[in-house]
């Protein structure tokens, strides 16, 4: 898939140059638009805020939100809150690993899957909860997953 080139000027215009406190919102906005932080954007953010790129990497790697590789087209997020844990999220995670071959935080090479664990999505009465591309799937059992993922994959591949 060709990634469209994104114009970051409008994002940078929203902030004043050289203010450190704007760094996190700036990076968040960049990630909202492009889905990840590329090397160019980090260099540009560094020049804009007057910080070295290593410092920005140091900051961005501290927080879980920032990713440095694009998310897959099927982005799977599993909730691992207490309620989901009690209702069997571990088995769901094992199954996802088995199907996709990914560890949490990774994106597959073909760019179809990416997989993340979230601390709590707040849908505790729907546990275990899985979120795939912004759609929630509640009361997920490991057995449901192969078919669900196959279906999604089919949709993506024929798109």
């Amino acid at each position, binding site marked *: 898939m060709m990634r469209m080139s994104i114009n970051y000027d409008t994002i940078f215009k929203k902030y004043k140059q050289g203010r450190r406190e704007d760094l996190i919102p700036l990076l968040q906005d960049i990630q909202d638009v492009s889905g990840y932080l590329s090397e160019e954007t980090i260099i540009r953010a560094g020049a804009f805020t007057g910080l070295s790129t290593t410092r920005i990497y140091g900051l961005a790697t501290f927080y879980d939100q920032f990713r440095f590789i694009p998310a897959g087209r099927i982005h799977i997020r599993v909730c691992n809150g*207490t309620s989901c844990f*009690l209702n069997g999220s571990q088995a769901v995670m094992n199954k996802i690993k088995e199907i996709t071959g990914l560890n949490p935080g990774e994106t597959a090479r073909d760019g179809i899957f990416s997989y993340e664990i979230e601390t*709590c999505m707040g849908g*505790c009465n729907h546990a275990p909860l899985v979120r795939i591309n912004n759609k929630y799937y509640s009361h997920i059992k490991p057995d449901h997953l192969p078919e669900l993922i196959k279906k999604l994959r089919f949709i993506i591949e024929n798109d």
Partner: protein
Amino acid sequence: MEDLKKILVEKVLLYESDVLPPETESILRQIRREKTTAPVIYISSGTSSIISGSEETWSAIKTYLDENSLKTDLVRVGCQGPANFEPLVCIQLPGKNRLFFRNITGEKVDLLLNGVFHSDINEDDLAGQQGTRGFEMWPGIPFIEELPFFAHQKRIVMNNCGCYDPENIDEYIARNGFRAFAKTIRHYTFEEVCDIVERSGLRGRGGGGYLTGLKWKQALNTGSLSRYLVCNAKESDPGAFTDRTLLESDPFRLIEGIAIASYAIGTSNAIIFFRKGSEHALERIRKAIGKAREYGVLGNNIFSSGYSLDISVRREPGAFVCGEETALINTLEGKRGMPRLKPPYPTTSGLFGKPTVINNVETLMNVPVIMLNGPEWFRATGTESSPGTKVFAIAGKGRMSGVVEVEMGTSARTILEDIADGIKEGREFRAIQLGGVSGSFLTSENLDLEIDYETLREKGIGMGAGGFVIIDENTCMVDLVRHYMEFMRNENCGKCIPCREGTGRMLEILESIIRKPENEESGTTLERFKGVMQLDSIASVMKDTSLCGLGQNAPNPFMSALGNFREEFEEHIFDRKCRANVCRGLRTFSIDVEKCTGCTACASKCPVNAIYGTRLQPFFIVEEKCTGCGICYDICKFTAITVK
């Protein structure tokens, strides 16, 4: 539209007396939908409802109304609280009490609406009716207020939740909204507001329980020219979703609370620090702030009082430790979210070195009612030392789950047995986990304790921010503690050594307890016992020497579980057994020779080839090879496989 705004601002908010003239009151009644000619349908629309499919319900109802060309008001409202009832639909026929229908998914809509509009109500989905003064009662239908879930609650903070459209500021004003702020800003000085809140005895609901009024006073009495107010909406404890529900259901109330608090400490800069992943609530609060600016509740020279205020919204970039106030300040300054040494406390030197007050969402939402009704009124609810109410998010293995608000001093038993209606599928109760990953367990002995800061503190239990997780007999406490410790190991910031190394070491030891007993004769057993003996001392060192609350409280679940469930730990360590059959490493499977038909299903699925046998003859499992994955147990159709 412009007229209505003018009336609401000039004749309601800025009206001198508390009692409004009848003509204004009648306009407000119309806005509150108490005087309607057409039916009104309310659909709950919190995140929990959306997960259950409330958006599909919304479009199904819309299609139905369009097809039948019915003139009906369709309103999205916030969450009422019971998450098991989602998607919740309320229908109000003109002049009659509101009817609550539970679990109305898209496909049930036609049946439901056909029934309601042809006075043939389907009783299966009906949860009850809500009594409203001046409305006609439905005969033979129970009142929703009398359901055990609602009957034991007392709603002060949540009294607007699920009653009005959270995107409509008119409705909020019609429900007494922003009048406390208008009154405060025109009649009280900064000190008086701090004083009123201090006298009310409101304590920080984020878990600390510090007197809110006192905190404000400390910030106000510094000599600094600028100050900051930060609303901490970060609640990141797994299992707690109270703040998010409050935000989604009543965003204007939070804005009013922030506005009063900012006025009390004399600042024009307020920041809401938002949790990652609650986009829905974020969108709501942004819209609400926009509306409030439009109505002149926020902005420059509010109501010609000379006071200006603006609220900005910042999103949390994803780190559990940011909920700690000094780490939160670092994040807002654009640094790594690592805690700072206290003192100086944020009230003297916080954001950019200026005095900063950090309050929780629920605390701030209590403020408008205190200002409106006075501190004595607030003191009348709750207990002597902790007045008011507390909002809890009930999750886990209870029959009911959702967000509830109880008066301080209610016992945990009431919440467990009456509000949550006991444990799912009649299983045995084991514990309640209060306060998320750094909280403690309430066992059956402590169930009658009153929920109150002092009573809980005496027992060494923290109130927490609102997590109330019910745990049943099918949960292994050792495994749960390990899960919490793993979370802490991943989420600690790495600044101070006791926390960084301590969580890692404790996790290692806990993992060794539940690991498969391989080579039992070699050194691993000794290692395990040595480790177990160290657990206590690691925990106490972490408690004494960690820099921030995260490290100091990280061993809490372990200490509490060890105190209450010692025999379970001992079983894991000495007998190598897990009574809940959760710990994979300690499970051993065997095949019942009587029941096994030799179908080979288990043998073909076993990932480690630990099952042997001849077709149509009973099979057997080689224990040394078995990893305890349980696939054979799940696959066997004849229940021939048993767990030991």
